[in-house]
């Protein structure tokens, strides 16, 4: 249905008047809504941003729709009647609308029933036009003008409000728009938030670097842990400003002076910027500070000669020279020893001064316990730790030196076999002595034959003795013969060489020597076998763990590797164990048997039984006892009592057991003598200290203080320090200071130091006097001071003499007892030296010489002490003590065995019967006593001040403590 002409006319007139005001009102309203949306979005939360976005979309939609409708406005009768006629004349418009509806119905019927008459429609159209024309064009335009006026008012209002808000809160609107367009919590357009931004970078304290200032928009390389302090003045109030690196943010807080401050710690490379937070959204400033984080690098460690591979057997000592360098500072340097799963770290140095470069050296002996218990290749390296407290200390590691181990027990085996061979070489002179002389044709021929036999005996004996001495001195891959054993053997050899007699008698002596050595070697072999067995027990445990790992299923390869290596080491070690005497042979053969089980299970991929067998072997080897009891020769279960074999095994020969016992007793007595003498020395020292204490100290102190005052008064007019050196004033000032020092010493009752100060003061006064010829403005003071100082020096010397005399008198009484004791101890030393020359308990010559020298010194000391000459006596005592300690026999076992034995004792187990052929570990207690005695001496000396012969040492010690 088409609009009639009159209706079109009126619609056109309406739109001509109203279109522009309506558009103005619409756009003003939309603008206002847009501003509202921006302000809403500025809150930054998800909901508000969604609401604002929806509002903006609605505004846009409405704008588009308005434009579209405006462009495509048609003349549909009903709509035009409602829009134009009804707004012009409401009654007329209602009537027209009714007619429109009628016309629409009629039109519809005409469509559905084309044959029907359209007469009604024609009539209705006529009526409609007539009705429309009742609303004149002027009326329509008038009504349109009234409405246009309303639109103008509304549009103006909206425009005014929008303009006002836009002017008043333009920043917020911009922020809101920025927030509205944010993606991932970051607004797209940066904005400035602060002015006068100052960034202070303070590196971590351990770097000891000064703070520096960073410029906004710059790039800076900063150590990790650097603290940044950002100070700024905010451009706008009520903004929540933060400093952010994109991941972390730190809020600005008020600095109390109208500014803001924030702190930030550098952790990694970041772009640092100031930003404002709106809800979930950040709006950053345009110029970030680019920060490059400098990590604290691990120390670089260099080990001379590394990487390298060395055979442990060929090594007697491994010198490790290293240097370590860090970019900031070093805290600690360790020597790291690794073998298999074992790791041992030894601190080579700790550095508090945190210097960045250190160098040093360390010597690793082949007899080091770690190396001696080695059965897998060892990696030796130096590791250094830096001082980084921020990211945690980092270790730098040097290249490694690989030590290929000898088989477990190989060195012990080498040593034992060498000693056994050396022992067996004594059988040759015995065999020579057993030779029967050929029937001689004459007496002379008989004598010549006997002499020849004697000569051969002597030559063989000397050769054997030299061979044995060489075997005693030899180093077996760094392993040496223990001092106790060595001294025992050397003592016996010394006596044997010095012995005179018939061939038979000397042969008998050689037999005794052989038996003695035999017993000692058996003990050595037993100890070595026990030690090696325990180490092999650890290897067996390694095999056990390897088999366990191999059962894990998922990754059996490392376990298998471990098992195979352990089996290899076990086989090699067990083979070495076999040579270590009867116990070693026994345990070694047991180990090989059990190792056969482990290997059999390994070959069958039966890890479970390999583990069980290895565990059994480990337990067995950790219990190094004979398979069948030490003394059993047969079972009691059945049969005869076993073989009638006499227990003639090594170590049970006639005489040698007694010889060992006597040597053992002698060694213990020497150690005991050294200990007793140390106690006597301590007693004398204490007596002398007690004798030095001045009597009536209160009266003396009072007088000394009085004299100190007089000295100060006497020198107070002398020139003050600060004059040019070499001038009389400088010398006089020096005299003044020395005199004041004397006064101070007097107040402290240190008369010896006071006398020294006085002498220095007099010397300086004399110098000032000599240099000051012709300059007499303080000549009088010099003379006066000199007189006073000399007077007080005389008094001090007098006091010292009196004190020394009194101390000597007191000491004479106190030292009578120690003198008698010293004399007694000297007698003991003489007896021990004599016993050291006897065959049964022979000692090396150097030991007996030391004992005799000590005895003489002790006698001198006793005489000095008896005369009351305490200091002199004490000096002799100290010399004697050093000799006595030098005569100490040392341990019969290897250096690291004592500790193992102590550990064994702690376990409450006494493994084996021959662990200590020369008795218990007496020297250890002695060492303890010495350490305690030294500690007491040092503490007392520190309390008394640095006096006496040990004063420099005490001073160095005290300085060391302070360091």
């Amino acid at each position: 249905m088409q609009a009639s002409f009159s209706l079109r006319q009126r619609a056109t007139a309406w739109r001509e008047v109203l279109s522009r005001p309506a558009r103005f009102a619409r756009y003003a309203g939309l603008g206002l809504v847009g501003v509202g949306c921006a302000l809403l979005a500025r809150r930054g939360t998800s909901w508000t941003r969604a609401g604002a976005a929806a509002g903006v979309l609605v505004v846009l939609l409405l704008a588009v729709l308005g434009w579209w409708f405006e462009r495509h406005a048609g003349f549909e009768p009903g709509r035009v009647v409602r829009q134009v006629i009804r707004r012009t004349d409401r009654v007329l418009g209602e009537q027209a609308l009714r007619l429109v509806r009628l016309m629409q119905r009629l039109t519809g019927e005409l469509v559905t029933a084309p044959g029907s008459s359209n007469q009604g429609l024609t009539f209705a159209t006529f009526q409609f036009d007539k009705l429309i024309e009742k609303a004149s064009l002027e009326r329509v335009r008038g009504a349109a003008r009234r409405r246009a006026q309303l639109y103008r008012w509304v549009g103006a209002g909206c425009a005014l409000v929008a303009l006002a808000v836009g002017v008043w809160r333009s920043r917020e609107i911009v922020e809101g728009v920025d927030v509205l367009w944010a993606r991932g919590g970051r607004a797209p357009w940066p904005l400035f938030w602060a002015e006068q931004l100052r960034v202070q970078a303070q590196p971590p304290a351990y770097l000891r670097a000064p703070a520096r200032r960073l410029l906004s928009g710059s790039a800076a390389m900063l150590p990790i842990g650097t603290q940044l302090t950002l100070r700024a003045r905010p451009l706008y109030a009520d903004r929540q400003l933060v400093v952010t690196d994109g991941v972390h943010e730190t809020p600005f807080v008020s600095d109390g002076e109208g500014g803001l401050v924030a702190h930030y710690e550098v952790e990694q490379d970041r772009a640092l910027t100031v930003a404002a937070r709106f809800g979930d959204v950040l709006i950053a400033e345009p110029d970030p500070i680019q920060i490059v984080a400098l990590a604290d690098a691990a120390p670089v460690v260099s080990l001379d000669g590394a990487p390298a591979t060395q055979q442990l057997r060929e090594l007697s000592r491994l010198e490790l020279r290293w240097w370590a360098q860090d970019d900031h500072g070093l805290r600690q340097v360790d020597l790291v020893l690794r073998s298999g799963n074992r790791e041992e770290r030894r601190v080579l140095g700790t550095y508090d001064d945190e210097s960045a470069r250190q160098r040093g050296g360390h010597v690793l002996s082949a007899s080091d316990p770690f190396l001696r218990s080695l059965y897998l290749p060892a990696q030796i390296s130096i590791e250094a730790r830096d001082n980084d407290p921020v990211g945690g200390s980092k270790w730098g590691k040097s290249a490694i030196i690989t030590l290929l181990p000898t088989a477990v027990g190989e060195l012990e085996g080498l040593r034992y076999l060498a000693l056994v061979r050396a022992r067996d070489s004594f059988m040759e002179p015995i065999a020579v002595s057993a030779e029967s002389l050929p029937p001689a044709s004459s007496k002379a021929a008989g004598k010549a034959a006997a002499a020849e036999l004697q000569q051969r005996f002597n030559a063989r004996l000397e050769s054997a003795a030299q061979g044995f001495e060489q075997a005693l001195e030899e180093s077996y891959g760094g392993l040496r013969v223990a001092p106790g054993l060595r001294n025992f053997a050397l003592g016996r050899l010394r006596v044997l060489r010095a012995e005179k007699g018939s061939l038979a008698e000397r042969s008998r002596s050689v037999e005794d020597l052989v038996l003695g050595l035999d017993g000692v070697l058996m003990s050595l072999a037993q100890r070595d076998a026990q030690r090696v067995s325990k180490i092999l027990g650890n290897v067996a445990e390694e095999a056990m763990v390897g088999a366990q790992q191999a059962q894990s299923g998922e990754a059996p390869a490392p376990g298998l590797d471990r098992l195979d290596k352990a089996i290899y080491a076990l086989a090699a070690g067990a083979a070495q164990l076999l040579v270590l005497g009867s116990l070693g042979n026994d345990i070694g053969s047991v180990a090989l048997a059990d190792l056969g089980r482990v290997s059999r299970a390994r070959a069958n991929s039966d890890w479970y039984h390999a583990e069980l067998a290895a565990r059994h072997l480990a337990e067995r080897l950790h219990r190094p006892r004979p398979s069948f009891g030490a003394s059993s020769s047969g079972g009691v279960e059945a049969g005869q009592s076993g073989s009638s074999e006499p227990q003639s095994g090594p170590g049970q020969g006639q005489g040698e057991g007694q010889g060992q016992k006597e040597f053992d007793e002698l060694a213990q007595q020497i150690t005991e003598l050294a200990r007793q003498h140390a106690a006597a020395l301590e007693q004398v020292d204490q007596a002398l200290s007690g004798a030095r204490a001045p009597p009536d100290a209160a009266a003396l102190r009072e007088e000394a203080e009085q004299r100190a005052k007089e000295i100060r008064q006497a020198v107070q007019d002398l020139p003050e320090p600060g004059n040019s050196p070499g001038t009389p004033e400088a010398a006089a000032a020096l005299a003044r200071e020395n005199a004041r020092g004397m006064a101070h010493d007097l107040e402290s009752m240190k008369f010896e130091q006071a006398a020294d100060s006085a002498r220095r003061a007099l010397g300086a006064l004399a110098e000032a006097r000599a240099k000051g010829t012709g300059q007499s403005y303080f000549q009088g003071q010099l003379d006066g001071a000199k007189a006073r100082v000399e007077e007080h020096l005389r008094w001090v010397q007098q006091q010292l003499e009196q004190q020394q005399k009194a101390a000597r008198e007191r000491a004479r009484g106190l030292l009578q007892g120690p003198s008698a004791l010293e004399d007694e101890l000297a007698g003991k030393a003489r007896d021990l030296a004599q016993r050291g020359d006897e065959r049964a308990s022979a000692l090396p010559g150097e030991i007996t010489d030391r004992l005799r020298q000590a005895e003489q010194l002790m006698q001198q000391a006793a005489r000095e002490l008896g005369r009351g000459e305490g200091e002199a006596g004490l000096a002799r005592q100290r010399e004697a003590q050093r000799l006595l300690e030098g005569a100490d026999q040392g341990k019969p076992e290897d250096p690291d065995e004592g500790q193992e034995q102590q550990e064994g004792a702690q376990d409450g187990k006494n493994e084996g019967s021959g662990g200590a052929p020369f008795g218990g570990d007496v020297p250890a207690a002695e060492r303890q006593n010495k350490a305690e005695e030294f500690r007491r001496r040092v503490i007392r000396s520190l309390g008394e001040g640095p006096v006496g012969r040990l004063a420099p040492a005490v001073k160095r010690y005290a300085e060391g403590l302070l360091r």
Partner: protein
Amino acid sequence: MSVRSWFARGRIQRGAARSRPRRGSTRSRRRRVWRALALLVALGLFGVGVALWRFQGRPAAATLQSLPELLRPVDLEALSNAITEMDVTRARQLAEQYQHAPLSVAQSHRLSIERARLGLYVGDCDSARATLAGLPLEEGEVAGLAQLAESCAGATAASLVVEDRARGIWLRLQDADDEPLVPYLVEVADKAREAVRVDLGVDLPRPLRIDVVRDLFSLSGVSGLPLEAAETTGTVAVARWGRVTLLSPRASRHGYPWQDTLAHELVHLGLSRATRDFAPLWLQEGVAKRQEQRWRPPRPFDEVDAHDRIAQRALLTGTSVGVDNLGPSIAMLPSADAASIAFSEVTSFINFWIRENGRAAFRLLLQDLKGLAQRDPNEALRGVSGYNLSEWNLRWQTWLRTVQPVTPPPSRIAGGSPELGRVRVGDLLLRGQYYDAAARNFAAALAHAPQSSALRFRASEADLAAGRAALAEERLGELEDLDGPHAGWFALRGRFDAEAGNTEAAEAASTMALSLDPWSELVACEGHQSGLLGGDPWQLPDPKDATRQKLCAMARARPQVH
């Protein structure tokens, strides 16, 4: 058809049926039905009752297949007895049967313990360990068994097992190097088993299980004997858990009489089987000691009356241990001397008892002991012989006091002790190949102790090495000159006899030597030793017997003690 019409029709049909004249037969049928129902209920109640009784209040639904077994009561005591008597086949059957039967918690626990025991009895320590792993270790018996199974599994893991099926001997060798000794072990075990059968009337199980271990540590681990006790008394074998655990002769540097020891332990097994382990200790040890030499012909130094002599001396000197004062085991006595006296006393006592009562009475005693419900054997003793133990002890001591003291052969006590120092020097000289000097040394020592078999052996050895064969044989002397057996002496004796063509004597000497120290090269190689008595080691004569050859080769490979 509607429901209502259907209902009406049913009523009509029921009315028609009611009108039929068959009332009496219906009643009888109903009665039969009731009877059948009652029978079924009764059977059901009976079944429930059986199940309640069978499972001790634990009702379960039994399948028809298991009904015969369900009606059979569970007798774990029978299983335990079968294990103790080493009836492995029956024990396995019972264990299998009870394993599939539903049991109470207590029964299941007990069954697990018995299965673990069975594992130990058949030498399967792994399965015993696994069985016990599931049981709580708080219980003393379980903890003890678990510890034993653990140590046994470790000591026997991957050991070499050799079985002689024909003779029914099963050997497990911890040290595979002991394999050449197996034929000798089997021979001794077979003969000793036969002797036990003949003398005691007890058939030892087949296979007879023997564990040969390498040291006392393993002996303790396999047998459960405390290690300290084994070391104190020098125990070399243990018969426990249905097996003999024997220390390998190579464990001792100079060997030990392993053959008689094995026979001794087999007697223990036989007695345990015959008496269901109710034989008291004095009976066990006394009979074992009595029987240990009866499996073989007499040998030198078999002192039949030595036990009476030692017991008499102990009784008179107050060092007697006492038949009834042996403690838990002779191996756990405080010293080897005490153990030795105890062995002699119980042997003398048993000899006396059998002499007084006869062998038949002894077999009856064994049968009586088997039925004992408690450990006290006095009831059985009184029942068989009329006296209890203390009364027999008194009678034996009385007899012992009346016996004339038996003096040992003069050579056994004459002479002094060897000078050990001189012997050692001689050994070193011999090892250093100073044969003449060594021979002089030993000759001088022999003059001081001419009865010492060890010294005679050494002197002979040194002379032989020096090439003086005649003098060597002279130095060796005769059996009558010796104070005791020495493996080396018999080995050289065998060599000399063989070289003289006296094959029988050589064989006897060689066997004697073998019984003392089979792993001595001199013994295994029939009097020849590499580097000493055989000259060129590549020209050493090997034994003719193939078995002995293997033994000799292995003995030569044995590492030397330095």
